[in-house]
């Protein structure tokens, strides 16, 4: 039977970022300079409010080998828990010196990635349930056909994490810990370690957002 047709468009298909993603998104890592202004893994300026933290880790494949050609992006709220975007109308201060977005490549030898940022505040979630402080992470590489979305939570926020509506969506409690970055202090710097396991034992939880 003929019915009226919807006229939604279809999303363009994803394709892998490939081995040379750095040329486009981080040309300096590919070994050359072209743009005057480059996006980077440092999210802060001296004016940014909040506790300085480093996030570091590796992205590991199904054989246990770190990916050495992966590109990661993070998106996060500021220290007060507000996103620097017009859709966020929470009654909290903005920080003009903090976009909240950064991009990092893993090291071509070690596979280690790092971000220099601040620890975000808690953001209001659905139905008024506050979400624990977290950072949104997106991962692409050769062999990844569509970007992987996950979240980084913080080991020193156990109480907030226990109430977090998103962590609680994960039916298998044992898998929730794959989203918790471990806090360490090294020479006075705060470092959160966050390894991502794409496949296999302790596979990281990924979201269909």
């Amino acid at each position: 039977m003929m019915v009226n047709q919807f006229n939604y468009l279809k999303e363009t298909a994803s394709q892998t970022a490939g081995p040379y993603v750095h040329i486009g998104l981080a040309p300096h890592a590919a070994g050359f300079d072209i743009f005057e202004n480059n996006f980077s893994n440092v999210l802060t300026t001296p004016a940014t409010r909040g506790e300085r933290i480093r996030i570091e880790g590796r992205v590991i494949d199904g054989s246990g080998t770190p990916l050495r050609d992966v590109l990661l992006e993070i998106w996060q709220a500021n220290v007060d828990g507000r996103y620097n975007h017009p859709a966020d109308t929470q009654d909290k201060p903005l920080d003009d010196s903090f976009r909240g977005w950064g991009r990092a490549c893993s090291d071509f030898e070690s596979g280690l990635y790092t971000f220099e940022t601040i620890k975000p505040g808690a953001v209001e979630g659905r139905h008024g349930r506050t979400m624990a402080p977290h950072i949104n992470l997106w991962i692409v590489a050769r062999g990844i056909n569509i970007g992987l979305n996950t979240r980084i939570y913080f080991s020193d926020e156990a109480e907030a994490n226990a109430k977090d509506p998103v962590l609680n969506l994960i039916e298998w409690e044992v898998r929730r810990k794959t989203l918790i970055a471990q806090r360490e202090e090294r020479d006075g710097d705060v470092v959160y370690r966050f390894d991502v396991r794409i496949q296999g034992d302790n596979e990281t939880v990924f979201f269909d957002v």
Partner: protein
Amino acid sequence: MNRSSDQYGEFYQRDRSVHPPAYAPDYKTSILRSPKNALISLQNSLSEITGPVFRQDELGPLDNDLILNYAKDGLPIGERIIVHGFVRDENGRPVKNSLVEVWQANAGGRYRHKKDQYLAPIDPNFGGCGRVLTDDNGYYFFRTIKPGPYPWRNRVNDWRPAHIHFSLSGDGFAQRLITQMYFEGDPLIATCPIVRSINNEEAVRTLIAPLDRNAFVQLDSMAYRFDIVLRGRRATLFENRIQGAK
């Protein structure tokens, strides 16, 4: 800025039938780089409906001109082309101010990348990357050299069809997309394991840019048209209103 007429609802559930699955064994690298567990479905919160905002003054005047943005002592070798199109969402509305980043091989199929060992030469006047922000109509354009196909390690005689890699920021982090644009008439498209990771003929077709004769520049450049669709947002109805969001 008055955005009161804009809606910032959650995104429509992603229609995964247009996308390649994570595990596509003919593309061998995907075998160990694909999660085995199901994705956990997440209703959008502020974390997904917001995303980074970019400014025009962060880009340079030649960033969308790959013919000139790395020219050292001459012009790059190859066919001069313009690539242009509109970025829209699933509702058909323009996606304004989206960062569009592109990267590609040179005319001989070689990337300016320290990990590319293919024997075709580097072009001293070609970097192979560019970027541009979409305007209020969602429109973007850049000028470049048509990339060449190149061999890659998958099966012994696999060659990638000529392609340009595209990255799109959209207006919310859940719209983030990376894809590849192919060229009308390229016989390598039909057998490429990366293209064929998409199990949907219609979705593949939308990645193939047709020649756009109306946009040719006489005695200078041919043109290809590549329109892109990012996820659309719901109107904020009833209980779907997101706390703290407009």
